């Protein structure tokens, strides 16, 4: 343990990134050749990954970090790297993929943000505790709920106790540089810990700046060496047990080792960064101290906001005010000694936290700096803590000025008036009255019998008689216009068609995705009925809880007003990747609810990455097309068959391009969900933006998907499979190429180069179609 009174040589410098001048040792120019590009933080992380040449990347898309995987996918398609890219089914899966890969002894990368980091969190201490290095880039973003995609550090703060090393990158150049350092630091024999590199979502991840990129792969390789791990899970000559069952008295010792590794990292990080500085000419001390030499006061901020504050510090210095800005390049291990030394003669500091530790009376950084200073008996520095910039609130010069004003005032008075406060929250104007919503929809208005459902006593199955389409226009739609969906978006026809026949009171839960985002931009909502959002890894569980509460409160007679509520979850196809577990859980428990999946064949809300429902060969942002790759590598997930295997009362597929068929099915779905249990339905839903068609191409494209038998329309009712549209029977069967040729995302599949891939798609479509036909024909299936 470091003695507090030993003099530390503070690893701090006044100006970061001063060029060191060409070092010339043994006649060799040590500075690596570099060239300038114009790149944002995500691209910087992707370029670093390319240059590092990780063995494997496991990932799941989430704004604002998704672009890293996208850029790498694009480079991969052009043959610019050969990192194995494994798309997880969610971040928990991605973290598992990475952990397994890292146990295999190679170099591993992951990238995430916000909810994704939280969903992976559980894996993080496992990986640190079993001492398995890898690199995780985090473009920081606030955590739900309510859902907000913009930056703060509330996600990062959850990682503080996981045993990961945390490096902080204030701009795209730092993102690039620190990724190289991260590999070396984590793999160092005295450390052997995973390393997280955090940079601000949007402010850094999406802002392009001049970026120096290495030109000389050999020099990079020399710097990185290879991962030299004495034990791996891939050496049969040396059997190893990873992750034994370890109780007391042993576990505390494992954690002591981890703590010692962190202590070692305090030495290793500066060493590695010094070595890197020789190559790059850019330095990253543990503590970035700007104009602190004779500073009376300082503002302490993490990442991009610190850079803004430096602009203001320059101005105040020009006015003769002795102010400085402090930021950290490493958050774990925490550079407490450096901060103690740095602040010894500083009268007051204001610590800004972009994230609160609710109820602690300080943000995490505030707490840690107070704790660090408290260990120095000589220290008299006054500390103010401010929570700022939550949820992406911009940090302007004026905000930094305000911070300096407050900290200068405290220094002048020798006392802190307000130790802790929120900066930038808005009280509101009591005079403002919200715009009224639309009038509530009376139960009778949506109970008009637009679909008459009867049970056929002989077969035990349901029959549906639909009112004519024109009559349905009299049913008020439960979703209002004015939403933010793209022109032509299929989500709304899906909802409108379903709502036209669903009877009576309805409560919906939408999982995260386009439909949720474009209908509920605060402070407005398009929903005219009760609507809940929960994270798309957990919506089905959430709705099942509500269903059971409804039934229980009905049983207790507590809900006299609610006669008869139908519960429906609306999810994208992506939600059936990450949320598959809870959805199957709900299905196996057979709750009285509908799961309606609109399948637009990708993660559209985050900018069209592949989902497991994306068919093989389709171009998405993470399955790019180029010289070396031709779209998604594996076939589309057959979600209806997975649910059919849960032996639900009713499973169906439908298309928004064939409303009558869909409406008959959703009417049956309601009948079953109210009486027998869970119903799952998948509806093909047009997405012109990401399918790369014109906005009005829905009819043709959707029809071709049906006619080519890519998307068979069928239902599984009480275990019996029935095709509800057989293109062969009506002479409309067309080759799959007819469908693929209509979309920009698939047109490449028709070139001679891709003949083999096209054949593979055709074969798979045919195999699944034949299987369905057999099931359709068979009495028992």
């Amino acid at each position, binding site marked *: 343990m470091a003695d507090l009174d030993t003099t530390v040589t503070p690893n701090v410098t006044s100006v970061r990134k001063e060029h060191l001048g060409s070092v010339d040792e043994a006649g060799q120019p040590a500075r690596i050749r570099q060239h300038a*590009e*114009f790149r*944002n933080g995500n691209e910087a992380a992707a370029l670093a990954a390319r240059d590092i040449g990780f063995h494997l990347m496991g990932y799941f898309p989430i704004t604002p970090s998704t672009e890293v995987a996208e850029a790498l996918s694009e480079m991969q398609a052009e043959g610019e790297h050969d990192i194995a890219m494994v798309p997880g089914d969610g971040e928990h899966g991605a973290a598992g993929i990475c952990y397994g890969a890292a146990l295999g002894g190679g170099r591993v990368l992951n990238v995430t943000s916000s909810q994704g980091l939280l969903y992976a969190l559980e894996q993080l201490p496992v990986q640190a505790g079993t001492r398995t290095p890898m690199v995780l880039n985090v473009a920081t973003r606030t955590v739900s709920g309510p859902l907000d995609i*913009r930056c703060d550090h509330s996600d990062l703060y959850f990682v503080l106790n996981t045993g990961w090393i945390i490096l902080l990158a204030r701009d795209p150049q730092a993102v690039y540089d620190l990724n190289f350092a991260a590999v070396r630091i984590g793999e160092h024999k005295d450390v052997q810990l995973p390393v997280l590199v955090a940079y601000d979502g949007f402010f850094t991840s*999406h*802002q*392009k*700046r*001049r970026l120096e990129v290495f030109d000389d792969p050999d020099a990079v390789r020399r710097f990185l060496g290879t991962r030299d791990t004495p034990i791996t899970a891939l050496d049969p000559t040396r059997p190893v047990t990873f992750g034994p069952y370890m109780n007391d008295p042993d576990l505390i010792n494992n954690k002591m080792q981890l703590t010692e590794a962190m202590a070692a990292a305090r030495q290793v990080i500066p060493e590695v960064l010094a070595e890197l500085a020789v190559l790059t000419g850019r330095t990253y001390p543990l503590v970035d101290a700007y104009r602190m030499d004779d500073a009376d006061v300082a503002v302490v901020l993490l990442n991009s906001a610190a850079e*803004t504050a430096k*602009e203001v510090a320059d101005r105040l210095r020009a006015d003769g005010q002795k102010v400085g800005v402090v930021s950290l390049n490493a958050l774990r291990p925490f550079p407490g000694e450096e901060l103690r030394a740095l602040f010894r003669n500083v009268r007051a500091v204001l610590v800004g936290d972009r994230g609160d530790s609710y109820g602690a009376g300080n943000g995490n950084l505030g707490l840690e700096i107070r704790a660090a200073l408290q260990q120095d008996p000589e220290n008299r520095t006054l500390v103010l803590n401010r929570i700022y910039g939550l949820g992406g609130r911009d940090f*302007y*010069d004026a905000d930094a000025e305000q911070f300096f004003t407050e900290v200068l005032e405290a220094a002048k008075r020798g006392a802190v008036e307000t130790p802790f406060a929120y900066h930038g*929250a808005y*009280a*509101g104007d*009591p005079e403002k009255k*919200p*715009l009224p*919503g*639309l009038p*509530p929809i009376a139960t009778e208005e949506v109970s*008009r*019998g*637009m679909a008459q459902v009867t049970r056929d006593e002989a077969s035990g199955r349901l029959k549906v008689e639909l009112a004519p389409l*024109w*009559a*349905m*226009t*009299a049913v008020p*739609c439960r979703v*209002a*216009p*004015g939403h*933010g*969906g793209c*022109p*032509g978006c*299929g*989500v*709304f*026809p899906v909802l*409108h*068609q379903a709502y036209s026949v669903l009877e009576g009171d309805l409560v919906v839960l939408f999982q995260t995705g386009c439909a949720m985002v474009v209908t509920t*931009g605060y*402070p*407005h*909502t*398009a*929903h*005219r*009925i009760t609507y809940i959002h929960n994270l798309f890894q957990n919506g089905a569980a959430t709705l099942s809880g509500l269903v059971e509460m409804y039934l229980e409160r009905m049983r207790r007679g507590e809900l006299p007003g609610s006669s008869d509520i139908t519960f429906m979850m609306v999810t994208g196809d992506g939600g059936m990747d990450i949320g598959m577990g809870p959805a199957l859980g709900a299905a196996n428990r057979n709750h009285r609810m509908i799961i309606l999946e609109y399948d637009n064949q990708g993660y559209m*809300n985050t900018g069209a990455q592949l989902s497991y429902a994306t068919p093989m060969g389709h171009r998405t942002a993470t399955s790019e097309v180029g010289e070396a790759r031709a779209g998604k590598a594996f076939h589309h997930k057959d979600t209806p068959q997975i649910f059919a295997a849960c032996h639900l009362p009713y499973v169906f597929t439908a298309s*928004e391009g064939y*409303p009558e068929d869909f409406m008959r099915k959703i009417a049956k779905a309601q009948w079953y969900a109210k009486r027998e249990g869970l119903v799952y339905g998948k509806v093909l839903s047009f997405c012109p*933006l990401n399918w790369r068609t014109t*906005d009005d*191409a829905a*009819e*043709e494209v959707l029809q071709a998907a049906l006619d080519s038998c890519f998307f068979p329309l069928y239902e599984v009712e009480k275990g019996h499979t029935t095709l509800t549209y057989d293109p062969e029977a009506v002479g409309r069967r067309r080759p799959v190429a007819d469908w693929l040729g209509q979309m920009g995302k698939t047109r490449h599949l028709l070139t001679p180069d891709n003949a083999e891939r096209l054949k593979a798609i055709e074969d798979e479509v045919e195999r699944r179609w034949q299987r369905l036909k057999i099931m359709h024909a068979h009495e028992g299936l």
Partner: protein
Amino acid sequence: MASLPDNDRFFELRFESIGGLGAHAAGQILATAAVLRMGLNGAHFSSYGSEKKGSAIKSFIRLGPADQPIRTSAPVESPDVVVVFHRALLGHPATIAGFRANGTLIFTGPPGEIPDGLAQLPRTANVIRIDAQRIAAEEESRPNAVLLGTLAEAVPFLDAEILLDALNEAFARKRPEAVARNQAAFHRGTTEFERLPDIGRAEGDLPIIRPDPFWGYQTAPLGGVVLNAGSTAWNDLSTSRTGWLPVLDLDKCIHCGMCDMVCPDLCLVWTAEGNEPVPAAVRLTGVDYRYCKGCLRCIETCPTGAMTREAETPGLAERLGQPLFPQLDG
């Protein structure tokens, strides 16, 4: 090496657009060219939400001398140049907020038209009009190529040749077929603009606007719940249309309801006779263009050709539109 008008501060540009018109790409091309080929330092970024195609987007460029570090990451609030990609945006005060007294405004619009909002500009503003939409359509390019051409002429330190090279390069690999068309659009952008004198009426720099949110912590319902169900009906999405709208011909309409089943914007207006519970008859009376984003799916679906595509001329939507919720107009 390009020399900026004022080396003591950044030169800042703001592009005001809607998603899909290419403002982000244009900003990126311009800033990349400035930083990598004109010897400047710079930053580029756009305003992000979860916006889809058709919603408002801003793109920001900050330029400084090569040796001047760029540290702030805040949005551009006092622009030297504002480029308006869609003329409907000129109606919003935020579009020209913070505009500098001697700044340059480039907007896209047909010859002869001077949108109302322009009088709010400073008296000393340089105002430039270019019919980017039409030129782009004629050249089968996009408005952003035209506007980059205009920018290259309007901003003295930008080198048109370098900018055009950068534009070509951006497309050369992925869409080589677009290069010649973009080039033609760019060239027309450099010549076919008009400078409009004496437009602004305001004195000095325009004030910066940082609007407060509707709710605050003392007023917002707890937990972020939204209690005014269906309140998106107050939104006006007219700016999402890119030149076309569907028009109903009542003589041809058989009121079959097919269009209603596929309309993503839920903006078709129906009346019902004998509304209990299944109506005796219904009539489609028209479109509420406040919500129509112009996807034209209704036209594709209509079995009788009663819905047709028309070019959106100023005032057309107001003339033909039917209110879906008359109470909102009261």
